[in-house]
């Protein structure tokens, strides 16, 4: 019987894209592209705002679920332009 292959993930030195949690990734994305107004935001929100997610989903033509679903996460990982989508 063959054993299932177990992949071992390695932290490559100098790899700029850190292994972030989905929440961290989404938070970072929404801030960077203007969906969360970082100047008005108070403290550290651990929960991603539904409003910001819906705004992002609308801008990118995704289904407006307001949730951090698989499609939204995939979209956040796609190569893109660095100019914010929402003026901030």
């Amino acid at each position, binding site marked *: 019987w063959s054993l299932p292959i177990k992949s071992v993930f390695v932290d*490559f030195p*100098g790899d*700029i894209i850190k292994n972030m949690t989905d929440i961290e990734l989404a938070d970072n994305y929404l801030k960077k592209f203007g969906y969360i107004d970082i100047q008005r935001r108070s403290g550290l929100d651990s929960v991603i705002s539904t409003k910001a997610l819906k705004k992002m989903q609308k801008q990118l033509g995704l289904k407006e679920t307001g949730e951090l679903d698989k499609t939204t996460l995939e979209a956040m990982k796609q*190569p893109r*332009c*660095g*100019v914010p*989508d929402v003026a901030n």
Partner: protein
Amino acid sequence: YATFEGDLKWDHNDVTYRVLNYSPDMDSFVIDDAFVRAFRVWSDVTPLTFTRLFDGIADIMISFGKTDHGDFYPFDGKDGLLAHAYPPGEGVQGDAHFDDDEFWTLGKGPVVKTLYGNAEGAMCHFPFRFQNKPYKHCTSEGRLDDLPWCATTADYDKDKKYGFCPSELLYTFGGNANGEKCVFPFTFLGMEYDSCTSEGRSDGFRWCATTKSFDEDKKYGFCPGRDTAVIGGNSDGELCHFPFIFQDKEYDSCTSEGRGDGKLWCSTTANYGQDKKWGLCPDRGYSLFLVAAHEFGHALGLEHSTIKEALMYPMYSYVENFSLHKDDIEGIQYLYGSNTGPKLTPNPPIYPTTDPIVTDSTDRPTETTTPLPVDPSQDACTVTIFDSITAINGELHFFKNGIYWRMPSKSNAGVKGPHAISEKWPQLPAVIDTAFEDTVTKKIYFFSGTKFWVYTGQNVMGPRSIEKLGLPPSIQKVEGALQRGKDKVLLFSGDSYWRLNIKDQKMDKGYPKYTDVAFGGVPYKAHDVFQYKGNSYFCQDRSYWRMNSRRQVDRVGNVKNDILKC
């Protein structure tokens, strides 16, 4: 579509741009061409025109950078953020930055322009066959000097067409060494280096010394990217080491093992575990043309669109046959209006006369010369030195004492002629010292002695004195011309050159300059200078020196043998 708050836009339609540096991923000629095409996307549908500047401050300053590159918006390594640009305005506004941790291509894998060899600088053809083995990248197989090469057709064994691939063993770019190749090993701050390095630089670009000691000579250049070089990681620009060992297993090709993101990587030393040196493997890359066209949209005043098929949609996707989406057209025309007429009229009716003969400035009627009979057996190959050579309508023209031959751009079509100069351009004298075609208006300027003529289709202006253009009376003839950008042309005479603003018909200040200072490596008194297929040619006697867009002499040859194929 969306525009920036306050509808930010340029207050002039003649927008300028300047390319500050290049990516090592592609030849500078290919990069320049991608930018020209990207600007054309927008100029085709608006009254905007784009002119390239080679110095000074342009509206749109274009640069490649990595991570922290001088503004407050750092890039993030390979993939993720590709580029950004600022809306129109002063300073950094209007500028476009491209992440050089990306692999820049035309969207379908490595774009490798060859040098030397026998393929006239053609692109590599991947895959190609050599000794019945397929190659997907440049190789040094079959060579003792380790120089990477490729075939420019699918089958080297059959066609024998090849060229050398970019390599630091052949040349460098930028820096201060005039494109000289690297010298290995070289010394830098007392340490010896056997390969290109990014040590000593904060921008991560790989460089080398072009003499044995950088410490002593301070001569350096940047290393061109090899198509097999890794991207990012901690060994950017180095080559994969095959085989390499990773977690006790040997790998002969790139692998995604050990990564959660599925990206292919390789070790750049024999053992990853020991050295921890790695990088991501080249992929299809991102189309510089598509990304640049998007960024230039921002630089002109467009924000991101919500339409997936639009160019201004924020995410990258490769499109084979690109055409601008209706949404983008509406957006840019909202800012600048539509293109009301052709900007490049082939024969603009600037001289409204029914008589093809116009008079010169002294109101002397010019004479029409009777076409001289041409001996059809006259062979261009029997001419020792031509009066002048120039490209008109993409075809090389060889002038000699009242007749000319032309060579269609497909050089295998052979030389056509001879033709009588007086048949096509009746006002011209027999001897033409130099000529050039204004690429914008398609007017053709002819120089003979101290006079010049301008042909617009069949209409002619001249002869006029070259002094009218601002050349000094001491100049007896103009011996060469190179167009620079949209409305400048360099005129050569003796050991100097002047820069003419074609639009204003005035010489720019700060000239003449010595030819050998600005164009290192060419004869300082060329008797003919012309431009053809992006290269500048300097002729002396029967030879020519070809200078590429990086101002490197990449070929010295014989006019008759190499150009005319006699």
